[in-house]
């Protein structure tokens, strides 16, 4: 596997260029299978002598491993490459440094211009990546694709009355420059999000309905990606063990992992071991359809690969998602809020308190309190806790407002009830 690319980023802070980063790189990753023994190695030294040593070393390392009948290349059949997935936008590669600086500058200006209470900024960053992935194997597979990413992000701060700083960020990331949100919109959203935190306070400990905004809901969904991984199944480290083809969730839960969505960040024609990409239904109206697999975990657990192999260029393969999203529903966010008399609208989550084996969930959260169907005052420094199994059952509403900001996407959702830990 050969990965090569160029990266560029510029950060503008308080109107001045703070950092410019520019580089190109390429790395070769090699997996060797010898009598069921495997090694994974990498090198960035492409001189012929170094390459020869590198391959010899890979074979030596494989001898240290023990035979594993599941370790093998995928069975490969020739099939038509998927039509153009729209992963490459030449406009991203043509953008001048001045234009990138100008976009970051406009983003920050727009945040400061919204309200004088925005008093500081951690800077606005505009970045581009251009990459090529090439994969070849001894079974005759050969494939390559090019991709681009453009991104813009900013973090700003407002001063609260008690001297505490209230900060928030916003960002946009896309393969195409046209679909990237405008710098002004990104700056304004960041400022709005920081401003609405002014006066944030703790609330009393109690169990209430929880509404997650699309970004927080995507965070929840990201947690689920680990639980539906074939690797977790193999390790018996998922609460979904034994749940295949049973109704484990509310009928509103339909989740898909689709590597073939045109122009999306998780899209690719084949996975990181050459298996053709496809669309996998994970949950279908509450029924758990099955785990995601690479070739190894599929063999190990008696399944077929779902085209879900992900690996860093030099590392061993693992299971990962592509475009993993929760099917939007029919309600607007306002309609969802209107159903809540006393509850919590979560916009941020912090920390790592999720146990995928047991489903125990406890994370720090911030957002706004909901009173009589409307957003009321900002809330900070509380935790939300529950069991993932129960949360899936308790999904009560899904919004129509799905937002794509990365490879995991969700709309606004409402969970019937969770414990809020506060005062």
């Amino acid at each position, binding site marked *: 596997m050969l990965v090569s690319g160029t990266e560029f980023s510029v950060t503008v*802070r308080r109107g001045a*260029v*703070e*950092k*410019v*980063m*520019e*580089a190109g*790189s390429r*790395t070769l990753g090699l997996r060797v299978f010898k009598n069921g023994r*495997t*090694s994974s*190695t*990498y*090198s*960035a*030294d*492409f001189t012929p002598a170094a390459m020869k040593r590198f391959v010899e070393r890979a074979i030596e*390392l*494989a001898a*240290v*491993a*023990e035979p*594993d009948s599941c*370790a093998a290349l995928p069975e490969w059949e020739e099939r038509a490459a998927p039509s153009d997935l729209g992963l490459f936008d030449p406009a991203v590669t043509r953008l001048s440094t001045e234009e990138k600086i100008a976009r970051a500058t406009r983003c920050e200006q727009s945040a400061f211009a919204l309200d004088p209470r925005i008093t*500081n900024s951690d800077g606005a960053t505009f970045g581009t990546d251009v990459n090529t992935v090439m994969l070849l194997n001894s079974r005759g597979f050969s494939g390559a694709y090019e991709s681009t990413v453009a991104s813009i992000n900013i973090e700003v701060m407002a001063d609260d009355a008690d001297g*505490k*700083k*209230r*900060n928030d960020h916003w960002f946009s990331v896309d393969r195409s420059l046209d679909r990237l949100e405008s710098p002004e919109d990104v700056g304004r959203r960041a400022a709005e999000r920081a401003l609405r935190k002014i006066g944030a306070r*703790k609330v009393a*400990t*109690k169990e209430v309905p929880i509404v997650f905004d699309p970004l927080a809901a995507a965070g929840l969904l990201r947690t689920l990606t680990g639980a539906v991984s074939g690797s977790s199944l193999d390790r*018996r*480290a998922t609460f979904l063990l034994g749940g295949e083809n049973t109704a484990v969730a509310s009928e509103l839960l339909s989740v898909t992992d689709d590597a073939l969505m045109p122009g999306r960040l998780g899209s690719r024609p084949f996975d990181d071991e050459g298996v053709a990409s496809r669309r996998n239904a994970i949950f279908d109206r509450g029924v758990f359809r099955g785990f995601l697999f690479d070739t190894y975990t599929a063999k190990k657990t008696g399944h077929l690969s779902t085209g879900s192999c992900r690996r860093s260029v*030099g*590392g*061993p393969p693992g299971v990962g998602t592509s475009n993993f999203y929760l099917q939007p529903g029919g309600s607007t966010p306002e309609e969802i809020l209107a159903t809540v008399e006393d509850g919590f609208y979560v916009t941020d989550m*912090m*920390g*790592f*308190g999720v*146990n995928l*084996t*047991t489903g*125990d*969930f*406890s994370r*720090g959260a*911030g957002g706004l309190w909901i009173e009589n169907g409307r957003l009321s005052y900002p809330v900070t*420094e*509380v*935790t939300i*806790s529950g*069991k993932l199994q129960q949360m899936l059952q308790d999904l009560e509403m899904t919004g129509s407002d799905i937002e794509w900001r990365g490879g995991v996407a969700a709309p606004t959702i409402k969970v019937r009830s969770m*414990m*809020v*830990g*506060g*005062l």
Partner: protein
Amino acid sequence: MTVHAGGEAAAFFRAQFAIDDDVLSELLGAALEHGGDYAELYFEHRESGSIQFEEQRVKNVSGGIVQGLGVRVIAGDAIGYAYTEDLSRERMHQAADTAARISSRGEHTGPIGLQPVDASQFYPVVGPVSEAPAAAKVDLIRSADRAARAYHPSIARVDISLADELKRVLVATSDGRVSGDVQPMVRFNVTCLSEVDGSRQTAVSGGGGRTGMEYFAAQTPESIACEAARQAVLLQSAQEAPAGPMPVVLGPGDAGVLLHEAVGHGLEADFNRKRTSNYTDRVGENVASALCTVVDDGTIPNSRGSINVDDEGDPGRSNTLIERGVLRGYMQDRISARHFKTGSTGNSRRESFRHYPMPRMTNTYMLAGETPPEDVIRAVDRGIYCASFGGGQVNISNGDFVFSVTEGYMIEGGRLTAPIRGVNLIGNGPDVLSKVKLVGTDLRLSDGRWTCGKDGQSVPVGVGMPTVLVSEITVGGTKRIEGI
């Protein structure tokens, strides 16, 4: 180790890539071609290897070598950064030229003379893991596997990894300094699954540091494995944790993560220079209970967070951050030190040559106090005791933090009672440090397993803590407890 690490690194780059003082001066000259104020070259060569062991079998063996050069040019307050993995003269020049473009004053500086910087050796290694035969490493893994399985019949699966790294760095700067280091690292990790009547619990334990095979004589693979097995088995009987504010006793060692998250990040000078930390302008003020003295110490022998020289070439040091509750100073890199008109504190670190350096922690801990640890627990009527932690996160701007407890117990009537599971602590750094009521005599370091992330860059760190009583922290369990 008889050869000085800096000299050893310089000799390595000279022998392997023909990078000598002339090449360094020439590249620094190119980096300042357009009149930047300061230029720095960071060469890195990293060899890494790892063995993954699953279900009583060596599943995969990995290894790799990366090398590269990162060039940083500072012009006023702006940074230009470029890197290359190709250490040919042509590519290195190209990287220097790219970074140089941050400045446009067009002045040319004269030739740069270079002097080596002296540094100490905080991590002498007897038997480098990178050079140990594979069979010896597999033996360590197998003994851990056996120990975990023998610990308890419910241990249904054991996964182990042994990873090692040898990193050589060379830093040359336009103010005429050359320093280098050879940084070893080893990390041993055990994950155990306990299964009882369909109830599954997993736990992880690990160890390591900037050390060699000799590490495993003192900290045996068996002891690391049994710790993971013990925690997994314990979780089987753990109860739902309470929710709400209550007294919390932080056990020794791992709880240093709280310190790292709650105060450490806010004391990194870049956030204070940009005025985005809640500790901005507070040097000399009371920021914690008078029982708290907090130190960041890059000189602890063989610790994961220690550094002979930092990634701007300055020697690693020990710095007092908070002394008896009073903020003494920030952790500085050169850019921030210039702003604060002070010197570097040896805290400048970066993930690799692909990354620019920033102020980062090394080993951060609270000094021991005067209360015996059992008296700290005895002082609590109802609350929780946190023995080990899974990780945490902080909002630098206001100090709000969250961290997850992987082993915890209820405290009732001054005694530890039922184990609890699935619990997070949430609070505010300065607030929690002001509520420290007792500090134990039992400072313990947890210096083998933590990795800190900032701005997308990961660096190895150590933490440490004595037993400490905090009068109130919000606990994020699922069970409402009345009467606390």
